[in-house]
């Protein structure tokens, strides 16, 4: 039984110098057989396991992770959460996630530091203005809060933005979603891991999947670095490595894996209390609780699994940041890193069954998967448990690439790619 985290447990543990906290999840050896195996121990995978156990009352589930949990894109993103997508299908999907975020700390009894500080999307030309106003209206029709700010209102809401008409790409307005914000990325993975573990899910780290054993059109099990594990159902949530797993099962996916970079500055006093994104000049920035500016850069154009990108991408982003925020011009950057993101041609994800019975994929989140973590896990758990999609993820089936019914969200994906 897991001890509940509370002010009392904090006081109690302070008497033993915080040296006797119960471990948050077990470290089990894999059993020879599971009913469901989730490949990938990031936020999405752990959330999937959590909801399989909680909402569908399923037991005998394992999460298999190549490295340590939350060490992939969950630990590498810029933690932005919003739901201001254009199309109905995406609005439904991302707002479902946002509604879960709003109560997640309480539900998991784990402080995920969800902060609804608002997200702005800046417009820098007439087309941006039209597109973002259209998106504002589309969001409102879907019941998602969204406001249009003119230049004066932008300056008032976030005073450090350079709103001069003299700059190369002047600010011409912005959308604002006040319910949007950020959360602590590691805590999301750890909170779901703790919750799933408490319901009996085995989280197996440092265990790489080497092959998928098929018998005709169904699944027999997986070969791993810790031996063969029998199973009838596999949910793959491997982000940038989804195609690698798909190739093991003889499938091809509509994905390309590319490096996406982010960086943080040295910590400074609070200066920006919201998240500002700019698609046109490709700069987005927020400030962490430690005081670092968290800056998202773009993807490289070519396929690569190296978890590092090229310097020009970082340089381009910082040029835009300095033009938009002259106050940051003498700030030093502290760390830079890359993650491998799996991008679908329509910049929308796949939460889908496949042509192989018992094999499911949750991938293609591209450059913006973090915001969807709880909703993605919730809907993927439904898809696996019921062997059919939930109404909210039916549009994100792989067959949309056959029917042509794409969910084109390049405009709202915020990172141009």
């Amino acid at each position, binding site marked *: 039984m897991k001890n509940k985290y509370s002010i009392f447990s904090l006081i109690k543990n302070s008497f033993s110098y915080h040296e006797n906290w119960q471990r948050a999840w077990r470290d089990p050896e894999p059993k020879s057989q599971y009913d469901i195996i989730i490949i990938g121990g990031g936020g999405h995978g752990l959330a999937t396991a959590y909801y399989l156990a909680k909402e569908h009352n399923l037991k005998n589930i394992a999460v298999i992770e190549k490295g340590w949990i939350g060490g992939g894109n969950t630990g590498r993103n810029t933690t932005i959460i919003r739901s201001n997508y254009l199309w109905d299908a995406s609005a439904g999907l991302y707002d479902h996630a946002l509604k879960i975020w709003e109560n997640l700390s309480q539900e998991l009894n784990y402080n995920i530091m969800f902060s609804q500080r608002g997200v702005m999307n800046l417009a820098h030309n007439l087309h941006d203005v039209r597109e973002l106003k259209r998106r504002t209206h589309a969001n409102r029709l879907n019941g998602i809060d969204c406001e249009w700010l003119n230049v004066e209102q932008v300056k008032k809401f976030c005073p450090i933005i350079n709103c001069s008409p003299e700059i190369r790409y002047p600010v011409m307005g912005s959308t604002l979603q006040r319910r949007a914000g950020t959360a602590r990325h590691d805590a999301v993975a750890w909170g779901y891991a703790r919750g799933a573990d408490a319901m009996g899910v085995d989280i197996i780290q440092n265990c790489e999947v080497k092959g998928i054993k098929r018998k005709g059109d169904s699944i027999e099990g997986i070969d791993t670095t810790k031996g063969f594990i029998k199973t009838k159902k596999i949910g793959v949530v491997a982000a940038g490595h989804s*195609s690698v797993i798909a*190739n093991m099962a003889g499938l*091809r996916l509509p*994905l390309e894996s590319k490096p996406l970079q982010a960086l943080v500055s040295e910590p400074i006093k609070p200066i920006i209390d919201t998240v500002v994104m700019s698609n046109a000049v490709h700069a987005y920035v927020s400030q962490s609780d430690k005081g670092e500016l968290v800056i998202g850069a773009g993807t490289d154009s070519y*396929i690569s699994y190296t978890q590092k990108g090229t310097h020009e991408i970082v340089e381009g982003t910082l040029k835009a940041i300095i033009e938009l925020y002259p106050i940051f011009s003498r700030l030093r950057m502290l760390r830079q890193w890359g993650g491998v993101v799996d991008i679908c041609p329509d910049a929308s994800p796949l939460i889908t069954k496949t042509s192989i019975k018992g094999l499911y994929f949750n991938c293609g989140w591209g450059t913006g998967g973090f915001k969807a973590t709880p909703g993605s896990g919730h809907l993927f758990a439904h898809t696996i448990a019921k062997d059919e999609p939930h109404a909210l993820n039916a549009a994100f089936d792989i067959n949309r690439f*056959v029917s042509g019914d794409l969910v084109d969200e390049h405009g709202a994906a915020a990172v141009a790619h």
Partner: protein
Amino acid sequence: MFIINCPYCGERDHAEFSYGGEAHLVRPKQPTELSDDQWAEYLFMRKNIKGIQYERWNHSHGCRRWFNLSRDTSNDKIHSVYKIGEKPSE
């Protein structure tokens, strides 16, 4: 970051080049006879391989000519460069 050896100009920084995706995807000869599944396969499905990939590049800030590379996507090492219409050496 890597150096690409353009078959026409020699070694240049990769920033001079544009990536053109997986190579050797042949456009269907008789498009009218293709099923939707076959179209999806040609248009959207990719190997997205972790390992040696054959790919197209254009020297867009140089001679502006297309050519092919074989590159290991797990470490960005380039194994061979060959012209359009040629076969890779490995």
